[in-house]
């Protein structure tokens, strides 16, 4: 039996959806001009930039939204499954700082840091997908979105969770992906990337969010709605009230998306959180934030949609017991909830800072959760009596052939990072840092056809010139030093 976690009974989930449908009608959803005509033609009443979406329109959109789809690796293999109770993880995305491995202090992240993070995630099977993990502060802001994606595609063969912060950025990123995939049709048939699109709480699709979700639908490239109700500040204080708002924001996104192109892949996702009434911050590592993620995912699953959440991170600034506690607990909860893609690993300081060392520690938590999700299963006709028949009360189970045959599937073996027994190892940071070094030393850039690489580099150089980016940070230094 695979263990599951649900925080609401069926009746409550249906009440959540009932109120979410009500919110879509009244007060409605603020939408940018980019989406107005689309929604009006579909049957919504749009007045003063607010779309009043009838339930029938939302229900229709739900019937065309796919219940599952795959992301593909560079070789075109379907390696990430959005749908059902499959659980996958990717590192957190788009933070500004990196926890410096030498000083152990946060500093602005650079392209070379993103490259290192991508190489590390490439080496860790616990991460099914990469993310455009951090803002490269040595890259002009206008070029930031496509450049992050370019670096990930250059150094990784895994699927990518990414996002664009403007309409023009999205167009450039789609062109890059088209180039990398070998054409628009191929990109649609075997998408390599999924794009986060973020409504602003409460119930507001800004100009670039509206444009992004519509253009992604038209391109047939998967979109992941990242709704971010902030309980008590930009959403109702009650957790269930915030789940209602999340549902309304996601439903409105599904309506816009499926109206733009029915059948395009879309994910019921988010980064819901509470608002800390003392610090005024968003405690992404709090138990209530994890509960919101579980509950929001439960609503998406009720509708049969693929789901996403934001967990496996901490509000602490260091790789310490708080980071382990918060990240570990939310990894377990997200896994048990069956959230299809869980973003956030590696991150500290309420998503403001990434850490290589934390990424490897989080991978251990993810591996443990995979064991948890495998559950407890009978392995033969007898559960225990047949083994007792062999050992009697002497209890020498270590010698049994069953022990040797089954211990690898019954037990998870963590890396040396996790201390067990022995006479005392260096502190966690040192062990994690050594693991990072070990993994990076073993990294080899996945093969890519030379003509495709040349095309990507030519594209990047052409774009870079437009943005006064005189070199390609993270590319040429690496090539010269290699």
């Amino acid at each position, binding site marked *: 039996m695979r263990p599951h976690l649900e925080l609401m009974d069926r009746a409550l989930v249906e009440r959540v959806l009932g109120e979410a449908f009500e919110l879509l009608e009244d007060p409605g959803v603020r939408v940018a001009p980019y989406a107005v005509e689309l929604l009006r033609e579909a049957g919504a009443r749009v007045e003063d930039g607010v779309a009043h979406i009838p339930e029938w329109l939302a229900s229709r959109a739900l019937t065309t939204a796919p219940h599952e789809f795959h992301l593909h690796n560079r070789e075109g293999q379907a390696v990430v499954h959005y749908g059902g109770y499959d659980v996958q993880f990717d590192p957190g995305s*788009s*933070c*500004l*700082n990196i926890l410096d491995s030498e000083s152990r202090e*946060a*500093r*602005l992240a650079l392209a070379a840091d993103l490259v290192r993070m991508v190489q590390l995630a490439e080496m860790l099977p616990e991460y099914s997908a990469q993310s455009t993990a951090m*803002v490269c502060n040595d890259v002009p*802001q206008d070029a*930031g979105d496509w450049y992050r994606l370019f670096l990930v595609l250059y150094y990784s063969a895994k699927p990518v969770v990414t996002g664009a*912060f403007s309409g023009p950025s999205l167009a450039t990123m789609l062109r890059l992906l088209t180039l990398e995939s070998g054409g628009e049709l191929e990109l649609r048939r075997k998408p390599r990337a999924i794009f986060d699109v973020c409504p*602003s709480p409460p119930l*507001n699709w*800004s100009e670039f969010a509206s444009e992004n979700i519509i253009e992604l639908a038209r391109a047939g490239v998967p979109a992941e709605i990242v709704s971010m109700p*902030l309980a*008590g*500040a*930009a959403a109702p204080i009650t957790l269930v009230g915030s789940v209602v708002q999340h549902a309304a924001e996601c439903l409105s996104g599904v309506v816009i998306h499926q109206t733009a192109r029915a059948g395009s892949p879309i994910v019921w996702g988010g980064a819901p959180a509470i*608002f800390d*009434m*003392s*610090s*005024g*911050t*968003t405690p992404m590592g709090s138990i209530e934030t994890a509960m919101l993620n579980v509950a929001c995912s439960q609503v998406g699953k009720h509708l049969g949609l693929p789901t996403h959440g934001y967990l496996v991170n901490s509000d602490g*600034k260091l790789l310490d017991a708080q980071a382990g506690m918060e990240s570990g607990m939310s990894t377990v909860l997200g896994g048990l909830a069956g959230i299809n893609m869980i973003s956030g690993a590696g991150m500290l300081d*309420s998503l*403001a800072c990434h850490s290589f060392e934390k990424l490897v520690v989080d991978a251990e938590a993810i591996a443990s959760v995979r064991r948890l999700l495998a559950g407890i299963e009978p392995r033969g006709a007898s559960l225990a009596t047949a083994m007792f028949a062999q050992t009697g009360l002497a209890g020498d189970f270590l010698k049994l052939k069953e022990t040797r045959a089954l211990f690898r599937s019954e037990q998870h073996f963590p890396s040396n990072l996790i201390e067990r027994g022995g006479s005392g190892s260096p502190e966690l940071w040192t062990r994690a840092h050594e693991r990072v070094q070990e993994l990076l030393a073993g990294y080899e850039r996945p093969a890519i056809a030379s003509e495709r690489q040349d095309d990507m580099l030519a594209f990047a150089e052409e774009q870079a010139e437009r943005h006064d980016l005189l070199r390609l940070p993270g590319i040429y230094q690496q090539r010269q030093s290699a």
Partner: protein
Amino acid sequence: MSDSMFSAMKQSIVDGAPETAATLAEQCVSDGVAPLDAINQGYVPGMHFVGEQFGLRKMFLPDMMASAEAMRAAMNILDPQLKRMGNSRPCAGVVILGTVKGDIHEIGKCLVGTLLTAHGFRVHDLGADVSADKFVAAIRQHNPDLIGMSALLTTTMKNQRTVVEALDKEGLRSRVKVMVGGAPVTRQWAAEIGADAYGKDAVTAVAIARALMEGTPLEVLAEPQ
């Protein structure tokens, strides 16, 4: 006016009770009590108490918001009275606030505005998605002592730097102190872009604004990162 009345005024702020605060202010006017006495001996001590309790994690942001609302209710009665007397509440400073361009998140910035107002600052809130040009124009119009810029996103916080650069370019930088805040913002970031101060939350922002007005060294307020 008795001390018990001042205590009641203070308590109305602590309780976050706008109706009580307004009733007491009206009574103060009808009794001919100097409005400044009511403000300085009744309501302001209430706000100070709430600030202290907030620092001790005994009161929280919703309590602060309610207290600020009660303060506003009292001032709505007392301000016109002060004006009639040819007087006005001493202004703690003039502040321009805004969330920088590209960012539509206003919660933190509005909280800062509410608390600054409750503490006697005159606040001009430019809203969200505010360009550097708008900050420059507002500075020319209102001649503030301070500007406060908020950003929630890592991708938009860079526009705080754009505003500081615009102030330099327009020759306005020396006329105003610059405070920055927002979820991804840090003290290091503030230093890097040439801002004068960083506030980690709305309450700290008030303390920093006061310190900047008084010329108090900010190290006094510093907390280890």
